[in-house]
């Protein structure tokens, strides 16, 4: 069985989708969230990804569509490996 890497599974979730969500504000810093580099880790996999992040404190945002869509899919695949 070929090893499925998280990042390959992830790659469909494009930058454009991230920056589509506009105008979210980090209340603590009073700054708009911007697309930024983050890491995603699960079981024995770790891979880079891009999500909305507060440029001040690094607070990361995961939207619902992502959590119940792509993320759930990646979880299942990694768990079934």
């Amino acid at each position, binding site marked *: 069985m070929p090893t499925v890497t998280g990042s390959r599974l992830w790659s469909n979730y494009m930058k454009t989708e991230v920056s589509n969500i506009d105008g979210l504000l980090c209340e603590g810093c009073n700054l708009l969230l911007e697309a930024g580099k*983050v890491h*995603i880790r699960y079981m024995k996999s770790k891979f880079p990804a891009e999500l909305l992040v507060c440029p001040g404190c690094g607070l*990361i945002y*995961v939207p619902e569509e992502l959590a119940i869509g792509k993320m759930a899919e990646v*979880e299942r695949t990694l*768990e079934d490996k």
Partner: protein
Amino acid sequence: MDKEYIGALEDKCIQDCPPGCQSLCPLHVDVRKMLEAIQKADFNLARSIYERSVAFPGILSRICDASCRSGCLRGDYGGAIDVPRLEEAAVLFGMKKARKFRILRKRSERVAVVGGGLCGMTAALTLYEKGYDVELFEKSSSLGGCVRSIVLDILTPDIIAEDVSVFDSTAVSIRLNSGRNASELENLIESYDAVLVAWGSGQATRELVADIDTFICRHSGLFAAGSLLRKNYSPSTSMSDGRRAAVSIDRYLQGVSLSAGRDGELPFESCLYTNTETIVPSSVTVPAEGGSFRRDEALTEACRCVLCECMECVSACKLLEHHGSYPKRYVRELSNSVNQFYGVRKTKHMLNGCTDCGLCAELCPNDLSMGELCTMGKRELVERGIMPPAVHDFPIQDMIYSNSEQCSIRIFPEGADSVYFPGCQMQALMPDLLEKSYESILQMSSGRTGLYLGCCGAPADWAGRIPLRDEIIESFRTWWSGCGKPRIIYACTSCRKILANAVDKESLISLWEIFDEKSSENILPATVGEQPRLAIADPCTSRYLPEVRSAARSLFKRQGCEIEELFYSGELTRCCGFGGLVSLTEPEVGRLMVEARINESNEDYGLYCVMCQDNFASEGKSTRHILEVLYGASAHRKPPGSRISYSERQENRRRARESVRRRWASNHALPADDAWENTRLLISEEVAARVEERMILYRDIQRAVFEAELSGRRILNPETEHLIASNKPGVVTYWVEYSLEGEAVRIHNAYSHRLEVME
């Protein structure tokens, strides 16, 4: 997993063993498969299955001595299947296909076969297929041997000619009118690499004394087989001899052992088990005209075949059925993948789908326990970190909460000699009846019974988290020992199974036994009104507790219920799907298990396990728990088809603990609530349903909101003016969209993920 253990386990499953008909057939015709084809009126397939083992189908089907019949299971149920007539039907109604010979490797050696009867002809064909140069010598002017002397209307020359014509498509050279005497034999031995003498009965000579298993004679390169070695004539044995002699010659010419690894060539007793309970006797079909079956007669007779097989466990267990095979295969697959991490994906689903209910072992003629194997495999995957922790996270967190200060309490009054252990599920699902049953126990024991609210650790056991389970059991054991090892009155047989690991079994007694014993004391409520007729569904963990099963029945009867037994009951009871956390981790299989169980009878079910009740009622079954029969329905009962939400269950536990504290242990301190637990939530029904489906608890939501509010780490969506908070208390990250309404928090949405996101 230990190789020897796995090997022994695999050997226990005899599903692969051929049925009696096939095992006793000298040619091992796959009779069952052939008859299955006829049952479907597929005579073409039946014929080709027959021809796989029989080189001269037209001849043999007419004259076979049919030793299969003495092994036929039908024998005791109206008479053995008339297999030879069905074989004849397969030949008559199935299409003839030209036989294709696939010669894998051409060999240089030359072999002479002397004698053109069934034995010699079969040997010649077999050797030809193995790649040898074969010459077949027949002393008369045509092939067939002694079958030619058999009554004409059974075996016409046409039939023989047709079967014998198979040689036309081979390169076997046929020498008729030769191979008559011993001197010719000498010459043959000189000029061929091997010689097989396959003469008829009564033609043995001193040179032709052969080993009865390998057919080799003293003279090197000389073999003898067939009727000349046997007392009774049996056409099927002659053909089998021919084939086996050919195998010997092949081995001789290749210089390998003639005898090694040839078990199973001869007829043998089958070790297949077939359940005969449902077989209806029927008599053997007799052909209306002449000696052969018409199509419809063949169909009728074939349909008498039971299609013998075991599958006892598979037909009872939805998990084993769901995965489409049977234990012999499963054992191999599971052990391979657990040991080599190959194909773990499928394996995880198998392991997590097993409730360890023990029914398979109970049904298996050889006590093969898939439950034991699955439990072992699951523990191993957990230990090695291959089982994703998220799979069992929800029930484990739930268990931890059950045992927290908020939900758990341990009461032991002065002078008490017993403690009541109702179990965390009763506390969650029928807390009012928990208190009522405790009241009755107190009355029966003049106040000398304590109470332990908490979880026994079964979820940890089911999740394969053994250290965690042992920690919980140990905590209970220490307390129990400190109380002077009082008798433990359990309500849930799953708790009993777990507790039996920690305390001596004599200390454990079921609540139903206590109630039944004291039923004459007028402490238990009397029956009110008419009681329903109930089919009793025993919980799977009562399998080895006959005293509990009978006490429960006796209580139902005492309350005036008429009771009925299910097919799967007593020692053969089936799991509701909650065991092993299957309903939570493999919901598809869990649902199949519930469905199978509730469809066993149309009657309402009488239950004495809270989890069975929860599983069946939420799928729409009308049920009565024994405590409901005693005290009336719980106030927490939902209408059939709906379930008590997970958050409600936790809330029930917390409240039950507080109520018990107030009533019986006011000296115990109030639990120190975490500050966030007081966060007041406003949730619409729609959001509540969504959150429940996503298995997010109100407590998770409270904590996320509380911490965001406290730390100020929250996101604002200016468009909706909703705030967004997240929190990761364990394996799972929770997200909550909310807004503040005065002192309360309005929840708009919540979701979760298991991937960990970090900078």
